[in-house]
């Protein structure tokens, strides 16, 4: 065997395992599905191929979002994502366009969460500005919720929390999405309760959130138990009984069934006295 023949044979054997010039073809839908499966690296590769072929705003936005969780995660990859997002915002002529708004949101998320040293003050400002964008739609409203969260949970003495919650509560007026209103109301309820400010206010917000509909079934039990208990503590036995009864009807297997059954009995006994 001549050396040339040997070399060709070697290359022939290796050919199937050498990386191809092009990876698996895919669509935006495929890429986003990979993101939902936490396969960020594959999603990033797919979006990058799409963006290289056609650098549309959708492709670049998708690439930027996948870069945020590309492994291994580093400030370098996050900075690259930020560059894409910032470019999308700068080149936009319509401030209320979906991708412009989403890009602004994710820049704020980078400041808040994805960079190794979060800049919460800058994130709060970015959310505030986004939430005030006319025609901001979903992204403006979710920014309002994020702003409220950061505002309430900025590290301050507890004595300042009542005022902070009151300021956060004003954002409710801006929210048109029932889902986001509900999320903000849960945050407010948590704040009023955790910081020991007002149980009636906590209950009120929980009830509003409940009316909007809690998506995760597993949390609905917590909601009913919590509303019932808060109502009991603030002295509204009828309301408490109502929530507890609903809990017992829907969550027969829950660990709290015995206790809540007793509470209902105690409430009924209290009524009869």
């Amino acid at each position, binding site marked *: 065997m001549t050396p040339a023949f040997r070399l060709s044979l070697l290359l022939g054997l290796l050919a199937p395992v050498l990386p191809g010039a092009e990876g698996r073809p895919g669509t935006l839908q495929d890429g986003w599905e990979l993101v939902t499966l936490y396969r960020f690296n594959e999603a990033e590769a797919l979006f990058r191929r799409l963006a290289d072929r056609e650098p549309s705003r959708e492709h670049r936005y998708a690439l930027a979002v996948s870069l945020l969780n590309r*492994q*291994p*995660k580093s400030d370098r990859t996050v900075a690259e994502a930020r560059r894409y997002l910032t470019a999308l915002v700068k080149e936009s002529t319509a401030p209320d366009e979906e991708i412009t708004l989403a890009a602004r949101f994710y820049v704020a998320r980078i400041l808040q969460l994805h960079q*190794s040293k979060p800049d919460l003050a800058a994130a709060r400002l970015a959310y505030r500005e986004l939430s005030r964008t006319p025609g901001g739609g979903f992204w403006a409203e979710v920014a309002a919720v994020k702003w409220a969260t950061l505002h309430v949970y900025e590290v301050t003495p507890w004595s300042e929390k009542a005022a902070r919650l009151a300021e956060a509560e004003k954002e409710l007026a801006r929210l048109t999405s029932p889902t986001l209103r509900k999320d903000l109301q849960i945050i407010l309820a948590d704040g009023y309760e955790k910081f020991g400010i007002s149980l009636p206010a906590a209950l009120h917000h929980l009830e509003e959130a409940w009316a909007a509909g809690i998506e995760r079934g597993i949390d609905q039990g917590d909601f009913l138990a919590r509303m019932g208990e808060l109502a009991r503590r603030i002295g509204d036995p009828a309301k408490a009984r109502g929530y507890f009864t609903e809990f017992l009807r829907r969550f027969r297997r829950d660990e709290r069934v015995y206790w809540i059954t007793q509470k209902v009995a105690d409430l009924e006994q209290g009524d009869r006295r």
Partner: protein
Amino acid sequence: MKPPASRSSPAAAFREWRLYLFVLPSLFLVALFAYFPAASAIYHSLFDWQGGEAKQYVAWANFNRAWSDRVLWDSFVTVAFLVGFNLVKMLPSIALAVVIHRLRSERWQYLYRVLLVVPMLVPGLVTLFIWKFYLDPNLGLLNRLLDATGLKAALVGLDRLAGWGVFAEGVPIGWLSQPQLVLPSLFLWGFPWIGAVGVLIYLAGLQAIGTEVYEAAELDGIGPVGKFFYIELPLILTQVRLNLTLLIISTLQGYGLQLLLLGDTGGPGGRGMTPGLWMYNRAFIAGEFGYACAIGLILFGFILALSLVNNRYVRTRR
């Protein structure tokens, strides 16, 4: 006419390229199973990593954290004790090697060598389990021996005088369940501390000493103890140094003994916590794999430093 290429020239090597193919599989395996894991540990020590796919680059954060990790530095103190114990435990092997070497009958020498090697068939893990059983407070051989010989009573008496609060009448001694006894138990483990491999290595070194050296020593009136200090010990110092290096490395790295005997927390009071065991704890109990890799690198640094010190200062003279 071109002069022939020297046997060791690059040209000659290139001509014999087929020979290198024989080395490749072994090289590949060594690279994959020895060097790749080490490289991976270095890489991951720079990440916040929980062992899955997700990881975030944090540069030196893991090392900064290790700097103020009290448990880690306390574990080095523990391992310093263990190294000291193991230095003492080297002596019986050296003594036995000398004794076997001085036997006049070669048949007896051979028999003792065989007797030394036979226990090596028992897996190390089994030996550890046997020792765990010896140290059992209720059934263990050690407590029964102390009770039968009256030594337990002596210990109780001594405890009353010294106020240790460790030995009490009618209470089985918890060798691994009382913090004050953890290090003594780790010292006791392996008694009488005769390692077959060590003895054989020293014996090989001793057997290289020529009989004329002994004859000259006898002429000079040097007795048996003198022969040991002036002839035998200096001439087996190479082997001693090798064993010392291996011992230090294995003691610093080791955690299997502590894990089996004391659990992943290092036992009561964490007294048995070693750097290797802390690395295990961080990785597999706390899920902090990146931090565990950083601990591994710090440990590597220590081992390297000690090995260099050992090589430099434990000189051999011929």
